[in-house]
């Protein structure tokens, strides 16, 4: 039996308004409310509403056999609550079918784990409560911003009570093992990374290490790894006319999935929800593809759909994954350079988290709120200079004309925030 695990990331940042050196000390409102609303309306109409309606129909049609998972950032949930309660209700409607799992993440879609454990825990806990409040679910699955993963993170997630964590199925973690298996995290209790973990099952794709079973450093928390080839076939390549497989039909895709029969326990298809209607426009035929896909996959009786928590509850891991280094699902490097790769990004993040002690000492919820919103990883992504010259996916998502403009704007805002904090302290 092979479980197809569909998880969609749903997130929209709170974009900042143009903020110059001359606004510092004069203007403490940092968000571009109008632009955020415009983009929220656009993505709601193009993606969230039609895709939710489609998923709702599919769940109904397949009588519970079609199941999906969402992780909706707190940053977006707040925006939906304020401006598009209809979209929030449609997600809640999906939750009520019993076929949808809502994951936990950091409330502000932040990189907090890398800078402050306290802040990380505060944001995870806040998101957990929010998901419970809105969807009535106790989070069992954790995913960190942009699928960032490491042994340390897995250990932290386990200590917070999560049963399963998501990661990118990158070669540095898997070696030549398959992502289509359930793994367990390594380097958990012992506190030091066990380098032997990377050797597990080399060659057969489903190896099993007796030493790990003896408990020399593996955690109980399970790891689901994204099958990036099959995931990106939909999220990136679907409408690419130069792609050998263009046009991609549900039938063809289901055939690829079915050919994994016997070798795969699970196939993890993780992608941005905005793939449907926003990154791949409706004109590309992405919605009919999604509509037909579950039926095509379920034609084969050895295939089922399951959410991460359901898989974690029923499938035993075959081996451990050792991740002493951080990985992510971004770019070809699959590392953190998209957010923290250059001096500006490091300076911006360092300066932001350097304010933590002071902002928390202020006891001013507005300032704390502003500080937290500035943690959203998108702000650092906009400052990426890696492929700026070529113009690519980074540019598509960037509201600024250049990474330098993004940095200048952000630093001006941080400067104002820090001045406000100093003033508050003096009072």
């Amino acid at each position, binding site marked *: 039996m092979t479980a197809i695990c569909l998880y969609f990331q749903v997130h929209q940042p709170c974009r900042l308004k143009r903020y110059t050196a001359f606004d510092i000390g004069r203007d403490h409102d940092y968000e571009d409310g109008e632009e955020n609303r415009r983009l929220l309306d656009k993505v709601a109409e193009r993606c969230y509403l039609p895709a939710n309606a489609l998923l709702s129909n599919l769940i109904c049609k397949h009588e519970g056999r079609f199941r999906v998972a969402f992780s909706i950032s707190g940053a977006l949930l707040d925006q939906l609550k304020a401006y598009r309660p209809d979209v929030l209700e449609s997600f809640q409607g999906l939750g009520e079918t019993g076929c949808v799992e809502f994951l936990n993440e950091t409330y502000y879609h932040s990189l907090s784990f890398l800078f402050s454990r306290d802040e990380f825990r505060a944001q995870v806990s806040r998101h957990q409560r929010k998901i419970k409040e809105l969807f009535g679910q106790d989070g069992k699955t954790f995913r960190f911003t942009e699928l960032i993963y490491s042994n340390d993170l897995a250990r932290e997630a386990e200590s917070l009570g999560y049963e399963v964590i998501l990661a990118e199925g990158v070669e540095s973690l898997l070696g030549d093992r398959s992502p289509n298996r359930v793994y367990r995290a390594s380097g958990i209790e012992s506190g030091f990374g066990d380098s032997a973990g990377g050797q597990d099952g080399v060659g057969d794709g489903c190896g099993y290490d007796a030493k790990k079973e003896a408990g020399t450093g593996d955690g109980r928390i399970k790891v689901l790894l994204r099958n990036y080839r099959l995931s990106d076939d939909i999220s990136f390549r679907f409408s690419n006319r130069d792609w050998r497989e263009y046009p991609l039909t549900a039938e063809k895709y289901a055939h690829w999935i079915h050919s994994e029969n016997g070798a795969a326990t699970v196939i993890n298809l993780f992608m941005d929800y905005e793939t449907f209607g926003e990154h791949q426009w409706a004109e590309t035929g992405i919605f009919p593809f999604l509509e037909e896909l579950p039926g095509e996959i379920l034609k084969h009786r050895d295939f089922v759909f399951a959410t991460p928590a359901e898989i974690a509850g029923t499938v035993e891991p075959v081996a451990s994954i050792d991740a002493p280094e951080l990985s992510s699902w971004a770019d070809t490097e699959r590392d953190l350079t998209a957010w923290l790769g250059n001096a*500006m990004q490091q300076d911006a993040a360092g300066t932001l988290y350097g304010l933590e002690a002071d902002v928390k000492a202020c006891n001013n919820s507005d300032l704390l709120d502003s500080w937290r919103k500035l943690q959203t990883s998108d702000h650092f992504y906009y400052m990426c200079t890696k492929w700026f*010259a070529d113009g690519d996916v980074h540019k598509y998502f960037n509201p600024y004309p250049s990474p330098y403009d993004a940095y*200048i704007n952000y630093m001006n805002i941080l400067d104002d925030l820090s001045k406000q904090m100093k003033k508050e302290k003096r009072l």
Partner: protein
Amino acid sequence: MRVLMFGWEFPPVVSGGLGTACYGITKALTGLGNHVLFVMPRIELSRPFPLLTLISASDILNDASEIKGPFAQESSFLPSNLPFLPPSLSGPIILRPYLRAGQSGGEYLGPSDWPAESYLAAGEGYGVDLFAEVCRYGEAGGLIAARETFDVIHGHDWMTVPAGLAARQKSGKPFILHIHSLEYDRSGEEVNEGIFELERLGMEEADRIIAVSHYTKKMIVSRYGIPPEKIFVVYNAMNQREAGETCHIRRTGDDKVVLFMGRITFQKGPDYFIDAAARVLKEMPEVTFIMAGSGDMMPRMVERVAELKIGKRFHFTGFLQGPQVEEAMALADLYVMPSVSEPFGLAPLEAMMYDVPVIISRQSGVSEVLKHALKVDFWDVDELANKMIAVLKYPPLAGELVERAREELKNLRWEKAALKILEVYKV
């Protein structure tokens, strides 16, 4: 290929970017094995590199045997359709930037408030009436064309139009007009009709046109009504010998220095620089501003600085040459080119060579090729000031700009430009 090239200046005597560009172009063309016969009004040095022959137009005209030669009976080699030059042009007009203020023999009687060092040329000027010089140069063009063998005629800017057309009439070879700067760039709406007409005639008559940027190409189409099909864009580049010797200069002292270097004329936007400086000084009173160069707007600019009461932090150096340029660059923490209309703009590339971060106006050709420079609309003084402050206040910004610019400079090679020019020859 043998190229008959008409220029107006050539290193070491240059008044701006034109001479530097001609040097780069001829060096690269000859480096690729092409012979270049470079004609200019006067010659200051002979044969700077192989395959380049410098020809002096004044020598040709002064040589009695040439005049008495087989073509002596023709009254003029100028095309018959050359427009009548309005008499207003024969006076001491401001022919930016090409007219050198003749300091010799008091030939030139400029306005009394005219700074003596205007237009930098040492030694003799080109005479009182630039148009007369241009016509004489044109006659020489015809004589030279009759004497030499070549495959193509390549002229640089309006001054070479009569020469280029005369040479084409004599030889029947294609005439390519290379536009480095237009009267609209130099003078805004107050164009000199005579120059404008000569530019238009040249572009209409030329077999093909090379523009130094899409910015310039657009202007040629919209202002001169030239069909876009005959205009080819070839960007300027950086001399690789110079670029290889990137200067890493130690900056001393804590005070930050912002540099403007260029002619103090309408085209270069010195007034926007001064207004932005005043804005910056309100936020950062310790910054020093340097305006290096000279030009017709200088007296007004000195007054403006006084009006704004920022003279203490704002210095005029007059025109700088050679080692002085280097010194100014060594001092600078930031280079600003706020040009109102800049067909290309080589100066920021030079600043980048000295590891100085640059802010350039979007109304420039160079902004089409530079990604790692900060860009502003020349009229947006607030944004210019905002970016100046950011560079001075957030060191990682300057660091990233400089580091990325080094990679970028390596790709701006004259060889690339020369290959494109050869393609245009062969169209």
